[in-house]
């Protein structure tokens, strides 16, 4: 690496502030969220009624599985139910 003086090092350290904790936490929870989504999709595919019930209120279905109904998660669930994995 180039030979930085201390003011350059200070400026570079400041160039990488931490991401908001909530963002990091949400991304770290992805494996658990995926597993919950898998469970939800599997359950929805057990019958036509279950699938229709899930599709009728995607947000409620996610919340019942302990998932926050963020737009990206709702879109992911819809895609999975329509056979378009994310």
């Amino acid at each position, binding site marked *: *690496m180039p*030979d*930085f003086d*201390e003011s350059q*090092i*200070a400026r*570079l*350290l*400041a*160039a*990488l*502030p*931490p*991401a*908001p904790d909530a*963002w*990091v936490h*949400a*991304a*770290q929870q*992805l*494996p*658990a969220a*995926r597993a919950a989504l898998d469970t939800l999709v599997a359950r929805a595919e057990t019958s036509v009624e279950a699938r229709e019930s899930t599709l009728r209120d995607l947000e409620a279905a996610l919340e019942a599985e302990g998932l926050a109904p*963020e*737009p*990206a998660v709702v879109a*992911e669930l819809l895609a999975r139910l329509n056979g378009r994995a*994310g």
Partner: protein
Amino acid sequence: MLSGAVVSDEQLVARCRQGDEQAWAELVRRFSRYVYAIVAKGYRLSDADAEDVFQEVFARVYTRLDTLRDDAAVRAWIGQLTRHLATDRLRLASNRESATAQLPDRGASDAALEQIEIALDLHDAMRGLPDNCRDILDRFFARDQSYQTIAEDLAIPSGTIASRISRCLTKLRSELEGR
């Protein structure tokens, strides 16, 4: 938490592939600042767009980790993915609000992206420092904490903060010289 000082990017990716959730949490922690800096400083996305892209990047990394051909290249892959998704988001915003939204000045953005790459190299070098040095440098420079806040959080006299920072910067320079 996994020890960042001993686990390479390559090892971390291998563990993530095996379904190790702790490794995944560490991978997110390790690259979160990088992705955040690209979307927020490089592309200057709004908070909402930056958060969407941030989450989308890690969602894609998680689902497509098996497609990564060289595990050691995970950083470059994540950087490329982030830039790609941020560019898409800017285009979308530009189409949505064509009268007001603009792509950023490419020169300014490229300079910012270049600085972020160097900053991440520097951040990686910090893994070679003692924990107390990493912590105090991060608090002062990256988190912009005052001497008083640092002194209170770490239970050390505020009058010693400046000299501690100076000593840690010297150690970091020594660490960089070995690279």
